[in-house]
């Protein structure tokens, strides 16, 4: 119950901010942070819970974005349906990629996910209807009432998506599904011997993870009024989706949220004031430091502090 109240507060807060704040920059930045929350949460379902590292976040994210863009260009589909379509396409990609490669060891799956990004990017570079290498310009429709500004609407939409993503992650984590995934991560052989259908569960996690990443990408074309392959299939999405949970903590659904808020905010500040390269360098160093010294992430460190004195 506490969880749902927090969600309601978060969503309500987002709507309130949209009503009150005038400075649009906040909503641009906020949108990015919320988007990384969705990506990090999605990544963690397969990476944190089941232990299979996905380097291919941009493939799922980009496919979602392009699905939305192409459907908008062809049918002027409303945003809500774009999101559903994106979830379906990226979910199917997760299903297919999962069936193909999740039988193999984790490192092979990880490398295969890199392959996905290159293949997706190559496909869209060569597809003229979707804009090819130069990209596609899109004219935004007016924002649906009661929003007066499109970016504020996208901000609230992304906040809702973040809440949904975290709720899904929480459900998986606390249910028998989560226990099975953790068993796979701890010892796949023993899990299989204990009756856990390891392949099915892994493919399930990969499908859900992919679908959520697609959902994170769907509003992007509307956000930018533009889409093109190089920036859509950008490595930064892979880094953010992987580093956020590894730094925040992979065992609990709050970890990716914490990590994403930290990294996305940090990225906004450093990229603007110093450079994107320094941002990536710091993230890289933090990733290595946490993986080596604090494997349970920030959440793990917080747990070690004696909060209660008995």
């Amino acid at each position: 119950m506490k969880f749902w109240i927090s969600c309601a507060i978060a969503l309500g807060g987002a709507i309130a901010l949209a009503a009150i704040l005038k400075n649009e920059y906040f909503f641009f930045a906020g949108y990015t942070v919320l988007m990384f929350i969705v990506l990090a949460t999605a990544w963690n379902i397969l990476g944190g819970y089941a232990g299979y590292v996905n380097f291919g976040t941009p493939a799922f994210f980009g496919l979602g974005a392009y699905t939305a863009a192409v459907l908008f260009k062809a049918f002027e589909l409303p945003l809500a349906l774009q999101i559903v379509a994106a979830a379906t396409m990226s979910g199917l990609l997760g299903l297919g990629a999962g069936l193909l490669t999740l039988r193999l060891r984790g490192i092979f799956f990880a490398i295969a996910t890199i392959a996905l990004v290159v293949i997706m990017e190559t496909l869209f570079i060569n597809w003229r209807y979707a804009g090819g290498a130069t990209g596609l310009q899109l004219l935004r429709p007016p924002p649906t009432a009661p929003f007066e500004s499109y970016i504020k609407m996208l901000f609230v939409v992304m906040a809702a998506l973040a809440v949904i993503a975290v709720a899904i992650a929480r459900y998986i984590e606390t249910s028998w599904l989560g226990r099975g995934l953790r068993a796979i991560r701890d010892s796949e052989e023993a899990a299989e011997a204990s009756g856990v259908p390891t392949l099915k569960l892994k493919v399930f996690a990969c499908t859900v993870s992919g679908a959520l990443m697609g959902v994170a990408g769907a509003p992007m074309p509307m956000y930018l009024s533009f889409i093109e392959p190089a920036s859509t299939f950008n490595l930064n999405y892979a880094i953010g989706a992987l580093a956020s949970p590894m730094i925040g903590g992979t065992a609990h659904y709050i970890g990716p949220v914490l990590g994403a808020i930290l990294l996305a905010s940090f990225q906004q500040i450093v990229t603007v004031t110093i450079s994107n390269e320094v941002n990536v360098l710091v993230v890289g160093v933090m990733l290595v430091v946490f993986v080596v010294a604090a494997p349970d992430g920030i959440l793990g460190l917080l747990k070690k502090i004696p909060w209660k004195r008995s």
Partner: protein
Amino acid sequence: MEALLKVREVSKHFGGFTALSQVSLEIGRGERFGLIGPNGSGKTTLINCISGALRNDGGSIEFDGAEISSLPAYQRTRRGIARSFQIPRPFTSMSVLENLVVPLEYVQHRGTLHIADTRAEALEILRTVGLQDKAQTQSNRLTQVELRKLELARAMAARPRLLISDESMAGLSGNEVDEVLAILRTLNEAGITIIMIEHIMQAVMRFSQRVVCLDAGRIICEGTPEAIVKNPDVQRAYLGA
């Protein structure tokens, strides 16, 4: 005793190396069966083929009248074959109790998606192996002996009809060996067929009704414990030519 498990001409190759060569055996319901052989003779490979961790390259494996060679391991577990691992593989992020909840949920209660009161059942099983006091301990903090008991308990939680104990007693002291033997006996008395792989000869001989000896992937002898011990081929396999 009708056969519960029929292994017919099973072979397994790893590249050019033949780990198992046309192994055949039959195990009856409720039987206590011992599997011995020197290191590298193929005992664990055979167990892996039976439990589904590996796919056999040739031959057939029938369990309870049905061919299972093409089934993935988790489905064989659901049909009633459980095994413990030679080197314990606990679910390290979980408590001892939770380790048992996994097979209970996935083997027993999968019809009901919501968690039944598996925790009480898990505690019962822990009591049988003497680990009830460690229920809340994280499984990566257990001693070697406790880990081996957990392996057994986890296999028991799958409520098997055939339980394969893969060197559950390695490294245990005399008393501890007796403890584990007693647990296995109780399970057998409740009707569970048991295959025991062990190096501790006196344990195998005390426990088994029938013993098979493997060497270099082939069965070299089959019979009662007394007959096996006296067999010259067996002695040669263990002590060298």
